[in-house]
């Protein structure tokens, strides 16, 4: 059941990608064959291989040029219900044989776990559409150097930009293969291009730093170096002369680029691993109203050229459009086969997480969201890890802007915002249409009715 899709045009592959396309499936067959021969009950593996070029320029000069090329194989074997795993970067015959033996040796020592094992054979993806993730372009050092220099130069045009942490362009291509002893094998390949610029305004103890970036599968869709440099400069200059506001309770608007973090906490709390470990503040909340009725949270793993599109999950299970939250009610957890068996449920094809996660919007533009906020805090940066997934308690460092009557008044810094995620979810007032499309989790800005600010 070799399921490497033939619809993807092979002549478009780079020379190295072509080599990996031929070599990785052979390597997978060889390792699974060895595992079987050495009496593994079942086995599964993933192989990742990538190559890339990163260029960074700073203060008008190229600063670093980095070439990377990596490959690694992770193998899990089962002897009955016992499990062992290895991860290696050396894919020579001798190293692979040794890897299989070591994995099996570990499986002699781990305990019988009745829930261990592959996902069921009948759930394996059987055929799929090409997700169209691969848009090759020859790596060109000179071009990336010129673009990085141009980007930083635009960013530094304003004399109030006093320093720079550089601008960079990155190009990479990656292939991943998953295979298991059910006979499933699937390989995907994709490209990624990104650009970023980090600038500093002010001097001495008045320095502020901010940045902007873009990330795309297709080179042609990447923002221009000028646009990135300019946005980085605007954001940095806006932060100058910040104030510390006093301790109080206020409405808080999470800017789109950080609002995805809130969805991350939701997904962490409904993921099988935290649920069966009793480590989630959302345990036993299936079918309960977590959000206002206008909130839906769903994934579309089959988007063409999507950031995280894949026809099968990290266990080979066919992915599907999942709706996690509808009308504000938690519809289902996010499960792989192991946590599903632990919880007495079916896998939701989320081994490896959610893919192209989206949140419904209440339709307001960024400006309208500021109007809806009225008077309160717009948060554009969060710092630290103060989120307790067991209790939902949330307390993080923040920076942003004080807003009055929908108009930004001045930058705010050195404060914390705190609350409990269950209350924060329940008290969402609006979700903007100003969606940040750069990441796997895409949402507009999110307005929360009230949080505690600790400040001056």
């Amino acid at each position, binding site marked *: 059941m070799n399921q490497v899709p033939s619809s993807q045009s092979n002549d478009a592959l780079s020379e190295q990608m072509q080599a990996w396309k031929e070599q990785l499936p052979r390597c997978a067959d060889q390792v699974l064959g060895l595992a079987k021969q050495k009496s593994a009950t079942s086995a599964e593996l993933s192989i990742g291989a990538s190559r890339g070029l990163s260029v960074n320029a700073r203060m008008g000069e190229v600063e670093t*040029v980095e070439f990377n090329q990596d490959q690694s194989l992770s193998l899990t074997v089962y002897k009955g219900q016992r499990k062992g*795993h290895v991860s290696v970067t050396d894919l020579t015959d001798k190293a692979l044989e040794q890897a299989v033996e070591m*994995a099996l040796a570990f499986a002699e020592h*781990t305990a019988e776990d009745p829930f261990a094992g592959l996902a069921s054979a009948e759930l394996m993806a059987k055929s799929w559409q090409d997700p169209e993730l691969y848009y090759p372009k020859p790596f060109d050092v000179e071009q990336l150097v010129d673009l990085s220099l141009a980007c930083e130069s635009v960013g530094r045009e304003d004399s109030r930009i006093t320093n720079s942490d550089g601008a960079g362009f990155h190009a990479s291509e990656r292939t991943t293969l998953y295979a298991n002893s059910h006979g499933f094998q699937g390989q995907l390949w994709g490209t990624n291009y990104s650009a970023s610029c980090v600038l500093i305004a002010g001097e001495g103890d008045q320095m502020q730093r901010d940045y902007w970036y873009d990330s795309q599968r297709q080179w042609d869709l990447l923002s221009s170096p000028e646009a990135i440099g300019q946005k980085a400069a605007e954001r940095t200059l806006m932060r100058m002369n910040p104030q510390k506001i006093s301790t109080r309770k206020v409405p808080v608007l999470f800017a789109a680029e950080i609002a995805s973090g809130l969805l991350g906490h939701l997904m962490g709390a409904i993921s099988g691993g935290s649920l069966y470990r009793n480590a989630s503040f959302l345990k036993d909340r299936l079918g309960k109203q977590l959000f206002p009725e206008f909130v839906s949270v769903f994934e579309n793993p089959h988007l063409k050229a999507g950031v995280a599109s894949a026809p099968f999950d990290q266990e080979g299970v066919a992915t599907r459009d999942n709706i996690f939250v509808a009308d504000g009610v938690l519809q289902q957890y996010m499960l792989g086969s192991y946590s599903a068996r632990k919880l007495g449920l079916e896998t939701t094809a989320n081994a490896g997480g959610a893919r192209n996660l989206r949140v419904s919007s209440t339709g307001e533009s960024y400006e309208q969201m500021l109007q809806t906020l009225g008077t309160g805090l717009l948060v554009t940066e969060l*710092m630290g890890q103060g989120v307790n997934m067991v209790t939902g*308690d949330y307390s993080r460092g923040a920076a942003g802007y004080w807003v009055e009557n929908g108009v930004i008044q001045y930058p705010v810094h050195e*404060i*914390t915002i705190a609350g409990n995620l269950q209350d924060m979810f329940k008290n969402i007032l609006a979700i903007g249409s100003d969606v940040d499309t750069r990441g796997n989790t895409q949402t507009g800005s999110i307005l929360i009715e009230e949080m505690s600010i600790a400040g001056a």
Partner: protein
Amino acid sequence: MIEQVSRELLLPGQVDINQLDHFLAEAMGPGIDFADLYFQQSMSESWVLEEGIVKDAGYSADRGVGVRSVSGEKTGFSYSGDISGLAISQAAEAARSIVRQGKSGKVEALRKVDFKPLYVPDNPILALSSEEKLAILQQADTIARETDSRVKEVTASLSANFEQVLVVASDGTLAADIRPLVRVNVSVIVEQNGRKERGAAGAGGRYSLKTLMDKSLAESAAKEAVRQALVNLEAVDAPAGNMPVVLGSGWPGVLLHEAVGHGLEGDFNRKGSSAFSGRIGEQVASSLCTIVDDGTIADRRGSLSVDDEGTPTQNTTLIENGRLVGYMQDKMNARLMNQSVTGNGRRESFAHLPMPRMTNTYMLPGEHNPEELIASVKKGIYAVNFGGGQVDITSGKFVFSASEAYLIEDGKVTAPIKGATLIGNGPETMQKVSMVGNDLRLDDGVGVCGKDGQSVPVGVGQPSLKIDELTVGGTGQ
């Protein structure tokens, strides 16, 4: 040690140690003034227990060589997972393409770097049998559950890493290091009347798993995790606002790591992007503060006999009686700033560029009994354990999140409070250190520091400290 490491790293790919100057010459090329090769082999093993059984165990191995070519402030970098003559030459050609004009630098004759080994050069993984490793975790589980009936979940993990590195550089450096690193972590969830809380603790260092077993580190971690979780079961909402904060000794030294340490790394200061840039000689902390970065403490998690550029580590004074006296440097930034190297050139692996990083960063002890610090506070908080922290080195803003903290009322420690994030400005906060305890303690050996996407093991430490005013990010009054 060089012989043993070369045998492991070079021999399989038929690379001769006497050829290395030839590969360095290839990485030099026109306009290149410095080059180095970093060979590394890393082997790790991990065992994980949850729900009373060891469910998973595994091994990972990685090896390769990184080639760096430097021209002034420019760096070209390439690496290969294949340690062979051909692969090194190809990587060298890519790395030196950063510049194409100018005088070719010279490769000095390679000389062995002298240093004192700070840890035993044995593979820590092999020091115990699989049965013994299982027993350590099982015992941690048993102890955690026996300590208190409210313990509902126990997760324990044991990991060991064995790393061998060989560095050669065009300045004549030839150094090898063999680095063991082990760690145990225990995390528990306790439940009482429907309320759940978590506690976590761990310990480790640069020694073998046998040492970890002999020191009973897993048992101590299990007891400590349960203690913390039970404290949190009683926690009330943390206050919000500015107030005096007393920090306990040991792991709360993460304050220094964030508020001061990162800002004193050479690269940020060369570029002028740190809140501490250009402030050598200035009073940047209260005169009670003397802060060092010390990579030379035997067996510590943050220690290195030589750094990843082959420079022996040292005990570097960063702040002396509040005055800024030194930065942490790697070779490139030391040269560009015309300062001495300090043995802080570190990298996550052969596939990453080295940069100035901390080792074990801590504050020297003061004169007060810790009780005096608490007695001096009318209303404030006493924070003794932290999750982690983060800093914006440019504005100096730092945060760190408490995982165990208490209210101080009228000079006495009272109710435990829920985890709150503390936020401040590094240079300002350090000026507000008004009392320093006599109880210096280093952390238990679990620290990981991230910078530019690279993770390295580090240590922190401090005596108890009183900070007159810091913003506490709670939800209460």
